[in-house]
């Protein structure tokens, strides 16, 4: 299908084939020296024959990926209001410092005496994280939020085992991220869902009923995924601790409170911190992330390996623990160093003062959106909200237009849609997180568009919504066909 033009391009939107379809036979985009032609010493393994990779020159590769990049929405190109995902500006200084050869070309297994700068950087970041959270220590190696959850629950399970108190259940509020129950299952816990109350918070009575001496922990996101602070947090943490259970906090929304509230003061026992959210390391189209998990005193001895310890003026990497209490190892090496360098650069740039301002501006921007959109959309829970605001689809009832339609119409208006249909506790959820790096003017323009779309929906302008997106490089894609007959790789005969 070539669209309206002979070659398939539409102005600056270039139709770009797959790399494999660009194959020019013997071409290559690198000039490597000629091998000497030695006889291979491959033991019992035969040398391989063809692989099937295409041959493409450097200019073609540059053009290919440049054209692909132009088909992506990005925080660099516009407001990206994905609730709970925290799409904020990614400073370029961070990209510059991570490429310093002393970090970029250091090897994870080089002698420790030769990598003191790397260890110092990790230790410094760890100090910032424990200070900001008011926690006793931090395990740095988790590769992303879900990996941090795994580390946290493994510590909890190990601590309970050490107490001689095997427990089998984890409580998870119904508004929780899907990673929470998935992680609990990975640690062989049974998951009990705790309902939310009419205020969008954990239903305290239901929580109390669910809590007994078989509960290992509650996994709580605070602020929660409705963008609301759990007002009963002190009661909840108190009840958990009295029952001998732990409070695991999902730190996905730490950006709302950084510098203003320390999770340790809320009774949190373990919390992962998504450096790619609160501390602005780039999302990169889906990763890499980084999920250090801060821990309380009781959980620290069980933290995974490796760890970093001060040794006089030097830093020491501990690769095995003397008492055998570490729960294990999560990955090949020490952690997402590249994300650590970026996050520390971000923290140092903001400082203690700036990080507090980050939280305050994020909260102010979200409340501003909540105030501006509350007439046009229905907010199921009253404000104030924290760093994100939640609407449901009640105002769309009987218009024939759904949350999905609003989202696709936003694309035509030049915006990435908000998080939709999550959290699951409200119907047709729209979760909007503007972040602190949007200006008032930018948010005003966004709100104008959202109000306009709500008006059009009420007017019954179905055509506008059901044909959306009309101006994106692609129309709505057939996800059903993709799932019914999965085509997951290119093969020569599919072209």
């Amino acid at each position, binding site marked *: 299908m070539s669209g309206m033009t002979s070659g398939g391009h539409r102005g600056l939107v270039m139709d770009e084939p797959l790399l*494999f379809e660009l194959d020019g036979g013997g071409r290559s*985009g690198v000039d*490597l020296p000629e*091998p000497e032609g030695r006889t291979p010493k491959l*033991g*019992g393994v035969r*040398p391989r024959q*063809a*692989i099937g*990779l*295409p041959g493409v020159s450097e200019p073609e*590769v*540059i053009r290919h*990926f440049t054209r*692909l990049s*132009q*088909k*992506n*929405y990005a*925080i*660099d*190109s516009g407001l990206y209001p994905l609730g709970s995902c925290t*799409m904020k500006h990614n400073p370029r200084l961070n990209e510059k410092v991570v490429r310093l*050869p*002393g*970090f970029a070309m*250091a*090897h994870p*297994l*080089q002698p420790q005496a030769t*990598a003191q700068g*790397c260890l110092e950087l990790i230790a410094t970041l760890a100090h910032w994280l424990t*200070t900001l959270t008011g926690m006793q220590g931090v395990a740095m190696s988790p590769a992303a*939020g879900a990996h941090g959850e795994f580390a946290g629950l493994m510590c909890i399970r190990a601590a309970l085992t050490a107490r001689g108190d095997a427990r089998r259940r984890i409580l998870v509020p119904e508004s929780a*991220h899907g990673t929470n*129950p998935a992680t609990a299952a990975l640690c062989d816990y049974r*998951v009990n869902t705790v309902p939310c109350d009419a205020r969008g918070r954990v239903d305290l009575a239901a929580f109390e009923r669910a809590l007994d001496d078989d509960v290992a922990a509650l996994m709580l996101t605070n602020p929660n995924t409705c963008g609301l602070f759990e007002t009963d947090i002190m009661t909840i943490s108190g009840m958990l601790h009295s029952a001998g259970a732990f409070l695991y906090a999902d730190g996905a929304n730490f950006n709302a409170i950084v510098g*203003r509230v320390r999770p340790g003061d809320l009774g949190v026992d373990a919390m992962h911190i998504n450096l790619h959210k609160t501390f602005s390391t780039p*999302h990169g*189209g*889906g*990763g*890499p992330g980084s999920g250090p998990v801060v821990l309380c005193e009781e959980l620290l001895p069980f933290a995974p390996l490796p760890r970093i310890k001060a040794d006089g003026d030097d830093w020491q990497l501990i690769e095995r623990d003397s008492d055998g209490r570490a729960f*294990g190892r999560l990955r*090949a*090496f020490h952690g997402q160093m*590249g994300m650590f360098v970026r996050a520390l650069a971000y923290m140092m*740039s903001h*400082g203690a003062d*700036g990080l507090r301002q980050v939280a305050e*501006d994020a909260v*102010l921007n979200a409340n*501003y959106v909540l105030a501006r959109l509350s007439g046009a959309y229905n907010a199921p829970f009253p*404000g*104030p909200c924290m760093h994100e605001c939640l609407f449901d689809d009640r105002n769309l009832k009987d218009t024939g237009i759904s949350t999905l339609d609003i989202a696709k119409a936003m694309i035509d208006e030049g915006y990435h849609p908000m998080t939709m249909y999550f959290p699951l506790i409200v119907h047709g959820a729209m979760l909007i997180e503007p972040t602190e790096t949007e200006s*008032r003017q930018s948010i005003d323009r966004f709100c104008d568009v959202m109000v306009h779309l709500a008006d059009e929906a009420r007017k019954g302008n179905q055509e506008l919504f059901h044909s959306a997106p009309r101006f994106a490089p*692609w129309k709505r894609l057939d996800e059903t066909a*993709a799932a019914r007959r999965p*085509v997951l790789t*290119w093969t020569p005969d599919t072209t």
Partner: protein
Amino acid sequence: MRYLPLTDTDRAAMLEVVGARSIDDLYGDVPQDVWCEELLDLPLHQGEIEVERALSAMAEKNLHGGNAPFFLGCGAYRHHVPAAVDALIQRGEFLTSYTPYQPEISQGTLQMLFEFQTMVAMLTGMEVANASMYDGASAAAEAVLMASRVTRRRRAVVSGGLHPHYRDTVSTYVRHADLEVVTLPMAVQEADLESQIDGSTACVVVQIPDIFGRLHDFSALADACHRAGALLVVAVNEVVSLGLLTPPGDMGADIVVCEGQSLGNSLGFGGPYVGLFATRKRHVRQMPGRLAGETVDADGRRGWVLTLSTREQHIRREKATSNICTNSGLCALAFTIHLALLGEHGLARLAALNHEAAQRTMERLIAINGVSTPNDGFFNEFTIELPGPAAEVVDQLAERGILGGVPLSRFEPANGALANLMLVAATELTTTGEIDALAGALQEILS
């Protein structure tokens, strides 16, 4: 502050719209006795100049692959990354986009992931691959869990040739999965894997090149696994080796996991890296991680979407195939661009150069009195046996400014059989001068 657009005038005007007197009002749901009234005890904000200066000072304390003769490998390799790779991955449309949940405005990432999956399948000799995992070790752990789901069996046999950090990651992941892991000892003299396979075995996990740098054809082992109804999981921790060696898929592997760092990604002191994960089509619904799949849009135009998502945590919650959400997107992009630049011939040549560099290095080292190697085959990394403890030799080399290799005792200090063994890697970046420096220093230390 340069990253914060709001001015005090904006803030005041916005608070008025919100109907709040001050920002404190907006934090009214937080119990007031836990508010931080003071700034936390951390440095105040700094400009670009100061931050860059401070971080550069830390970076400069390290010896690294750019300022020292360098022979470290063991799961992370120093390679040349073409300049185009870094230029392209820093395009904001790639760098600052999220997971492609809205396909109409994420085709760049989705098409790239489809290309990545295809390349991974080609390299490993498998049918399907996912859109990446955290790293090779966590991918290996996920492979064991997947094999258990596929076979509904609860016993995994792990070769002593598997990287000890991979082995430890596997045992951590399966700790509470009601799975027995039988790990054979890490030893130059290999234990027999086939005799460990029985009717309860879900999978056998092996590595190529193994932790000593050796190469094995696993075809017979694959047959033995299949006869017993078990899967063969092959880990590859140097992806460039797949440019020279028969791929695990051709040997009969059922799941192939691989550390992809060598293509497009820097050493970076251990991360972020990119785990590759490939398998047979019939097992795709048991796979962990995201998948991009081909489809068409409403106009019939070819495009890509994330697909088979019902395996994943955001839909399946506690019944998901894995808890993984964020993967290694940008590292996968760097991998894809580097491999696109290399192409069929470039990768083969790169692999040949690596193998030859290792041959040259080995020849020089084993010519030194008291140095020998147990390897009859290898790719770009091999073991040497020294007359004394390798850890001490490595430290002495470091004192001379040479990063000479990894002492295998680092993984198992109590295992006396490993004490004198050192793993040495060479790549296309290894110069004759570096080999001279290493050989000269080693000779001096040993004499």
